[in-house]
């Protein structure tokens, strides 16, 4: 099935003077962030935190090409917009925000690290933190995945998701982030998942919705059996990569998806997002419905 990236009319979100320079990842991020801010009804968040695995690939590729092929002056725009903090910077610029501004980049765990930072800030007393993730695909990535024999089960895609994390529950709240972890160079994922559920007092039948990152790309047998042990019917176990495609921060899409499901199905009180997109990296995020 051919897939194309859904593109809203960005002019509704971003000033034309900024838009003309923006690559795909910047348009997605700024538009998404602004929509999120308006939905939450919060004019200025106390902080803006973004996670990105590979950053602004289009501009990086463009500038690298120029460096290696052009003699003389190079156009600076793609260099300026190649840095990982461009998304967070452009969001602060477009809404005039002077708060904490951070960018985490830990490949498949970039979103979870950003979320952890946001939760730290809330614990430190901040009221509203805008937190999101974005990554963009370029054609060259597909070439790399073939050359490196990655045997990807889903298409490489682009995506951005943003959330407003607030200290206090409000009328616009629709899910609560109970806990999240991001673990690198993990040797025993099964043990870590059990410990995470135990720490949060979640019994094996306490998860109502499980989102996982593909069954055939890295989940080992023990993790598979542990997830099966959550005794969930098939419809409540969703391979989110089959919906989002593959990009380093796709787990942010999964959080969005779970939160949406909670809004529409009140029997879903607890959702677990299990991110093993890269075998040695484990990201776990536990969401609870606001009524729970």
């Amino acid at each position, binding site marked *: 099935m051919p897939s194309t990236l859904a593109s809203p009319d960005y002019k509704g979100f971003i000033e*034309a003077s900024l838009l*003309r320079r923006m690559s795909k990842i910047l348009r997605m991020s700024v538009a998404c962030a602004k929509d999120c801010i308006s939905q939450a009804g919060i004019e200025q968040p106390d902080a803006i935190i973004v996670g990105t695995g590979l950053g602004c690939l289009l501009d990086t590729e463009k500038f690298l090409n120029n460096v290696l092929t052009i003699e003389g*002056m*190079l156009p*600076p*725009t793609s260099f300026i917009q190649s840095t990982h903090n461009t998304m967070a910077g452009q969001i602060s610029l477009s809404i005039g925000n002077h708060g904490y501004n951070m960018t985490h980049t830990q490949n498949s765990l970039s979103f979870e690290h950003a979320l952890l930072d946001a939760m730290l800030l809330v614990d430190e007393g901040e009221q509203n933190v805008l937190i999101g993730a974005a990554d963009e695909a370029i054609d060259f990535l597909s070439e790399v995945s073939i050359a490196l024999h990655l045997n990807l089960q889903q298409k490489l895609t682009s995506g951005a998701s943003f959330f407003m994390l607030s200290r206090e529950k409000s009328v616009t709240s629709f899910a609560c982030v109970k806990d999240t972890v991001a673990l690198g160079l993990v040797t025993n994922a099964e043990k870590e998942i059990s410990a995470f559920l135990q720490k949060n007092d979640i019994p094996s039948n306490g998860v109502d919705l499980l989102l996982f990152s593909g069954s055939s790309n890295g989940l080992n047998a023990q993790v598979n059996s542990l997830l099966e042990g959550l005794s969930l019917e098939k419809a409540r176990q969703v391979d989110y990569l089959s919906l989002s495609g593959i990009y380093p921060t796709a787990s942010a899409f999964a959080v969005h998806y779970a939160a949406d499901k909670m809004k529409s199905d009140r029997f879903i009180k607890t959702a677990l997002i299990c991110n093993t997109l890269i075998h040695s990296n484990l990201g776990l995020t536990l969401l609870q419905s606001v009524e729970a």
Partner: protein
Amino acid sequence: MDNLKEDLKTQIIEQLNLEDITPADIADDAMLFSDDGLGLDSIDALELIVLLEKYHGIQVTNPDEGKVAFKSINTMADYIHARLG
């Protein structure tokens, strides 16, 4: 001279990715860096320096020189003529 000005307008639109603007929208004496004109900024100024080298073979080594030359299409055309003698 007039061909140069028309060429400059097309080159500027392409170099700066001015999506919704056509050459006819840019008056010869419009202030490029003023909000009443094109509302360009310091990054655009650098892109215009690249444009001069790319299309006209003119090197600008001092960015301050650009500030004077890039006021309008008229001043850009004058600058190019002066540099190329």
